[in-house]
């Protein structure tokens, strides 16, 4: 019983699924954002897991991409929370369903 590459992928899949569920089924905006973060984390994990199946030099690349994705996640969180603050001030609500002004 050794650690298999597939296990990592399964774990990533489970976490990704949970992240998506959080992002969509919860109505609180904070949970929506956190669900997205969770899903991003799962993707990073998947990257690293796959990277480890590659030989030598190529495996390094698989570990660099998550770095970038973390940076992008940081930017996303920064802007996202700024927007949450603004919308919250206007609407006095963090309920995602109450933001339906764009519905035609």
């Amino acid at each position, binding site marked *: 019983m050794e650690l298999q590459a597939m296990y990592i992928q399964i774990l990533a899949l489970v976490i990704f699924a*949970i992240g998506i569920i959080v992002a969509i089924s*919860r109505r609180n905006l904070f949970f929506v954002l956190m669900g997205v973060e969770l899903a991003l984390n799962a993707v990073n994990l998947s990257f690293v897991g796959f990277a480890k*199946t590659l*030989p030598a030099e190529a495996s390094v690349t698989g*570990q660099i991409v998550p770095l970038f994705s973390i940076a992008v996640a*940081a930017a996303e969180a920064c802007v996202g929370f*700024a927007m949450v603050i603004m919308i919250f001030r206007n609407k006095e609500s963090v309920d995602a369903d109450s933001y339906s002004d764009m519905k035609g």
Partner: protein
Amino acid sequence: MLALVYFIILGVIAVGAALCVLLSRHPLYGALSLIVSMVSLAGIYGLVGSPFLGVVQVMVYAGAIMMLVTFVIMVLNGAKDKRTPMFDGVSLFIIPAVIVLAAMVGFALMRATLTFDTATVAGSVKVTSEALFNMAATGPGYFLLFEVIGVLLLSAMVAAIFLAKRHLGSVITDNTEEKH
């Protein structure tokens, strides 16, 4: 063998924490559970041989980003919303849909054969930075991406300031009106 044991422990913690995020009512609890989940994921990175990435995960994600999240949650006190139910009809529809999708993807995944390569390079700081900052013309050119990420972060910062500033500005005008 030992690695597998560690992996199971960390994995169970990560999944458990993730479920805590799903099930907690207050966002603050959710954020804390998320931090736990991320830290355990960092552990897994270390386990599979990417220690640098694990450290970054802890520092940037669990440290900086989640710090921001908790900060915002605390600032907006009204974030705790008792009126809205945790789950509604939509959720009942989503959960099975996502589970089915995940199952399908998993099913497809299981058909592949994945094995760890024995000659992988551990993602140490040295190795990673050599790859990242390889400026040779024939190299992968990640440094360019790195620059772009810098610009992205800068613009995100500007955007955040802009969003916040308008808000602040309106507050200021309100104050001036009160004075006059």
